[in-house]
């Protein structure tokens, strides 16, 4: 008899212990994402589709130094450079990227390009929904990655001669 009583008590204790975990977890906040019913949430440093940044004057930060392309292990960045002129000033430096493509069918989101950029022009954004049935749509052009000019900035606004000591 004594045996069966202790067995019941033991089982009850085990259930109580298990239920206490369940109850505790029920009370704590949810971590599961409700994606796609609700928008996904990200850590700040999540590495999604790249964003090409502008400076305070609204000019493109990229000076077409090709260092991101050189750092890229999957060789998916393609750049064509051109010279800023008095009439047409695109970036803050002497040179700008007239073409800047990233091939997302090859990008492994390693972040090396961001690391390599001397002007902080290329950063990772949080966009990740880029799946496609057609790989040719995975080649993103500069225009698709460039941030919009902030509404309060009138660009381009820098004087043509850059000043020294930068």
């Amino acid at each position: 008899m004594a045996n069966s009583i202790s067995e019941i008590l033991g089982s009850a204790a085990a259930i109580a212990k298990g239920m206490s975990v369940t109850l505790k977890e029920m009370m704590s906040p949810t971590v599961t994402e409700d994606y796609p019913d609700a928008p996904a949430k990200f850590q700040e440093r999540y590495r999604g589709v790249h964003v090409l940044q502008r400076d305070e004057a609204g000019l493109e930060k990229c000076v077409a130094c090709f260092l991101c392309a050189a750092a890229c292990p999957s060789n998916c960045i393609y750049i064509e450079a051109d010279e800023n002129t008095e009439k047409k000033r695109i970036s803050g430096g002497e040179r700008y990227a007239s073409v800047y493509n990233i091939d997302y069918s090859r990008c492994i989101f390693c972040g090396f390009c961001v690391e390599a950029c001397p002007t902080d022009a290329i950063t990772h954004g949080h966009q990740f929904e880029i799946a496609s049935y057609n790989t040719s749509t995975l080649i993103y052009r500069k225009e698709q990655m460039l941030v919009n000019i902030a509404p309060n900035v009138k660009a381009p606004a820098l004087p043509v001669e850059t000043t020294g000591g930068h």
Partner: protein
Amino acid sequence: MALVNVTINGVQVQAENGALLIEVAKQNGIEIPAFCYYEGMSLQAACRMCLVEVEKAPKLMAGCTLPVAEGMVVRTESEPVVKARKTTLEFLLSNHPLDCPVCDKGGECELQDMTFKYGVGESRFTEIKQHVPEKQWSPVVFYDAPRCILCYRCVRVCNEGMGVGALGVSYRGVNAEIIPSNGDHLECDECGSCIDICPVGSLTSGIYRYKTRPWEMEHVGTVCTHCSNGCKTTLGVRNNEIVRGNNRDKSGINGEFLCVKGRYAFDFTQHPERLQTPLIRNAAGELEEASWSRALKLVAEKFKALAGPDFGVIGSTRTTNEENYLLQKFARTALGTASIDHHRTGDVVTLIDSLSGKTGQLATAEDLYTSKAVLVVASDLSQQQPLLANKIRANVRHHKAAVYTVTPGPVREDKIARKAIRIAEADSLAGVEQLREALSKEAELVIIYGDAIQGEKVRQLVAFGESLGIPVKYVALVDYANSRGALDMGLLPDLGPGYHATAPGRSLQQMLDDPKLAALWVVGSNPLKGGKSLASTNAFVVVQDLFLTETAQRADVVLPAASAYEKNGTVTNVCGQVQRLKKGIETVGSKADLAIIGLLARGMGVNLGKVDADAIFAEIAASVPGYNQLPMPVILTGGAVQTHPVNGGVPPSSVPGIIASARDTLFTTGSLTRYSKILNEVLEKPGALYS
């Protein structure tokens, strides 16, 4: 010279007494970093990067100017030396902008490399950097003063290497900068040597400016297609576009030298007027675009119908040896004509005949650098033969060579000449005779002569040379990239490959003047330039060219051809040195002349064997004297080998032909250069010869 024992970093080495320490160290695998020291240039000792510790010397010494002596003990990596280098770099960078991301030199910059290897990585200077706006000195030369480290390399290469002296230094201290010849702009050879030699991105090239970065390009070593000198040029290719030319690896017969054409005038390949599709003259008498298959079919049919002795063939001075060989073979066999010629620009044939039975008397480009004496007859070398002129200048600088000139007007070589004779071209030989006494005292001599010396005069000149009683070598000057190859391959009305007699046909002028000519096939040449016309109004004319030249405008069918930068093959320079062309870019729409000849042969049902550059070269090597013993590995790896096409007499010619140089200047070489945007921009003064 006596050998001395020197200890560098604990290792005992032997060196020639008085040799420069920096060179001795280099020969023994020890790097002494340097900016202003440059092999082949005068010493400057301006940068202090090469400081080393020498035992018993009170202070660190500049390794670039220090001659070694017996028992010298040197340390190149000791603590004071390492510290001195760090300080030197810190000073050099004190006003240097942080421009690397946009600087055209980035990635191949000596200052970057040195800072990476020897620098501190931090600067104690916090002062605002002094900025000076960049200046454009000419269409091809830009100068950014803050990046300049004042090493004087550019000043020296322009003065000593080019003999131009267009650059100097002005102002002092932090304001010191390089100043161009005309105050705010350059009037010079526009050779770009200064840009090339600049260790930093201070001097940059107008054509390569901000286009790409060094590691993004493919570097294709080929041969310049402009003049006859045959400089090696390394084309920087990106996206099937040539973006720069230089020869930093010093390969080839030219070392680092390139003139304005070799360095910049590759842009004709991208010219908007470049032909990209065949043209056929339609019923209305206008040239109309057509497909390759239609054009080839038409030409093959016509060729088949018109083949025979009245068929004229004019070959090119720019196409490869393989193409020239195949062209004359096709013409002499399948087309059954002996009327084959090209634009002859120098009398090589008589020279070879005059030297029959002798060996080793044709000079190479290298001979102009090593020979103890050089005689220039009737040529403005610096304008017409830039590399040969450069070799002579280097010879004077390094070996104190004796230079003699016999020219109708002033030439740059006068400045370095022992004796300069001013005499009309027609009387050149009398001028040469005046030098007899001086020349016979020289130990050896190279005689180079222009087109004013031809026929009998060549024989007289050679007789003069042989009577001096010293070893004499000769160069018969010609104009274009493969002028010599056209002769060697038998694009002549009475001589086949290797100067063998063949049945005589018409010369170029006779073809143009003959009203009975049934057909004319012009491959890469422009015989109707300057308003000339074809006497035979009914002749069926086919032209292969890059552009719609005067001759192409007269053609019934125009076939767009590839340039030398777009094909493989070999060319032979003015000194008979064979070098290999390497395809830099693919063509759009046009085809290599070799392929066109092959397709026409196929259209006519003629079997020419395998039509590719290597196979044809093998055929040349098997059958053309002088080309049969060329060491192929040397050529295939980008070297130059001299040919001696015949060593017997050349049969006398029965066909009167014209030999006339086009008298091009430094900024022009035939029709190609008309289509170079950059050359037309730098044409500050047309640069008349002998002025």
